[in-house]
């Protein structure tokens, strides 16, 4: 088991290293980051040379990559092109808002999707199940950014003017506002982000549960004289949750990529919004760092999913 985890970890690290090279190269396609300085007549050649040296742009690309990745491994994500500061200090304050938003979305998803998926499987083709099927199709087909706009319009603008008081805020996040204020800001982006996950996971849970419901061992459990309740909640659910746990772990890895659109629509000050912001400002060193963080999260949570599976399913052992 331990040997497997070690082997898998080393492999993941190699993949990540490869991904970092690809990411570095892709971002370098943006060309010379100092173009705007060169076009500025007030910037002297000496200053230009100083900046070129500061960013290490005088070295060949592979050396630049080498410096970047070694710095990264020691916790230094490089220098921003647009602000006179380190990427670290730009990224750091953005972490918590993203974690908060993603955590809420994850919580909403688990609390709604899993019970509803199980219910839908037990009451297959009931009115509620059919409604769930239809709504999840709508959910799959809904662009998140547009859902965000509609939420802003309906729950932000219309509701506020109808109620006379502001219930939900449509953008940003205040750090000094206290708990209720945070919730007021958090609600809409969290809902927008959860809709697709809820659609996806409730269907997934339903399929997993249906799979288990037709299994022989449930018939065995009934033949023992177990009451229906224990048959479902003990024997069926335990098996039906295993694939969901894995998928949830994998989903966590996609946290960041998933946040970009929603955070931008709601001007939520997280990592996703930062990516768009850095792209607008041509600050490719920030974008580069964020891409690598995103890839690292995906790879890490894939590893977690793998290892988690061996814990929930006794049949899997990696000896």
């Amino acid at each position: 088991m331990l040997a497997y985890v070690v082997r898998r970890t080393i492999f993941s690290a190699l993949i990540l290293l490869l991904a970092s090279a690809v990411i570095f190269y892709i971002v370098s396609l943006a060309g010379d980051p100092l173009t705007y300085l060169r076009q500025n007549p007030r910037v002297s050649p000496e200053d230009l040379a100083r900046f070129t040296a500061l960013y290490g742009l005088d070295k060949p690309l592979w050396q630049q990559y080498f410096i970047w990745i070694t710095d990264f491994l020691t916790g230094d994500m490089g220098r921003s092109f647009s602000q006179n500061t380190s990427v670290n200090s730009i990224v750091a304050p953005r972490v918590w808002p993203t974690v908060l938003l993603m955590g809420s979305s994850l919580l909403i998803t688990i609390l709604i999707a899993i019970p509803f998926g199980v219910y839908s499987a037990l009451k297959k083709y009931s009115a509620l199940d059919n409604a769930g099927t239809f709504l999840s199709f709508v959910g799959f087909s809904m662009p998140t950014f547009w859902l965000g706009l509609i939420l802003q319009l309906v729950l932000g603008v219309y509701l506020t003017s109808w109620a006379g008081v502001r219930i939900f805020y449509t953008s940003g996040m205040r750090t000094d506002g206290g708990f209720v204020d945070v919730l007021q800001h958090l609600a809409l982006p969290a809902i927008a982000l959860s809709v697709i996950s809820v659609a996806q996971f409730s269907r997934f849970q339903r399929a997993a549960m249906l799979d288990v419901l037709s299994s022989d061992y449930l018939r065995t459990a009934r033949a023992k004289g177990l009451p229906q309740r224990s048959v479902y909640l003990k024997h069926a659910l335990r098996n039906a949750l295993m694939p969901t746990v894995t998928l949830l772990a994998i989903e966590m890895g996609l946290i960041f990529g998933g946040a970009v659109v929603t955070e931008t629509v709601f001007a939520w000050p997280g990592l996703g919004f930062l990516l768009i912001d850095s792209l607008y400002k041509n600050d490719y060193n920030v974008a580069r760092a964020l891409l690598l963080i995103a890839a690292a999260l995906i790879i890490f949570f894939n590893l977690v999913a793998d290892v988690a599976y061996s814990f929930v399913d006794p049949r899997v052992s990696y000896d």
Partner: protein
Amino acid sequence: MVDQPRGMTDLRADGAMGPGEAAAEGYGKVEGRTQKQIVWRRFKRHKLAIAGGLVLLLIYVAALATPVIAPYEYDESDFTAINQGPSADHPMGTDRLGRDELTRVLYGGRVSLVVGLGVGTFVTLIGGIVGLLSGYYGRRVDTALAGLMDFVLVLPFLPVLLVLGSIFQFSAFTITFVIALLLWPRMARIVRGQVLSIRNQDYVQAAKAIGVSDVRIAFRHVLPNVVGIMVVEATLVVAQAILIETAVSYLGLGIQPPTPSWGNMLEDSRTTMTTQWWLTWFPGLMIVLTALCVNFLGDGLRDALDPKAVE
């Protein structure tokens, strides 16, 4: 937690189509009905899929015929009719430059529909070929190709796309190509799994044993059995691509104005969202409608092509 749905095949199914299941049923006649008839019979039962298919057809025809049927030009400004709500002259209203929203929705649809169909085609081609090769030849070819799939899958899809969009300005063609380059591994994986299980079926082994050539086996035995699952996955890819393109364009990194696309039209509507509601609702509803139709169609196809479904 995710902005765009991924992997819906396995999520929508009551139990996903197991690899090899299609092969087990085979393609011949079952009690006097040909495979085609069975598939058609099952598909017909799926009312939403039929409706989805018809509406989608209508949307595509409208997109093809846009230059003929559009009431105005997409960049034709009428400064006497700025920011007007829906009326007989302008069924979807006008924007802040007095351009007809219906016309722009029609033209914008052309972009999204072309991207959707284009990505679907590219992904099917790349994913299909790689999956077939990987599953059929196994060993080193498989290790290399499967490694490539895994690698593309760990790249953060949307961020990479956005970075590329900011470096190179996307045209409808380039965004199609880049999305396809990032989306093909899922298709390849599905095809690979299916091919792997078919390859180990007795009849393929038997064909090999009597010396039937690889190419012949691939076309006679393997391909017919993966086509169904590829078609279903392709519909999902089309819907996904449409949602992705609109999102990227909305973020200002996709199709650039003045070419209208549903995404950049919605971005344009942001500032006037509270007063000109029609500019926010109509393009968005068109995205949802299109994606919904594609997904319903895909669901119907999945039911029809799934041999596990009860006849």
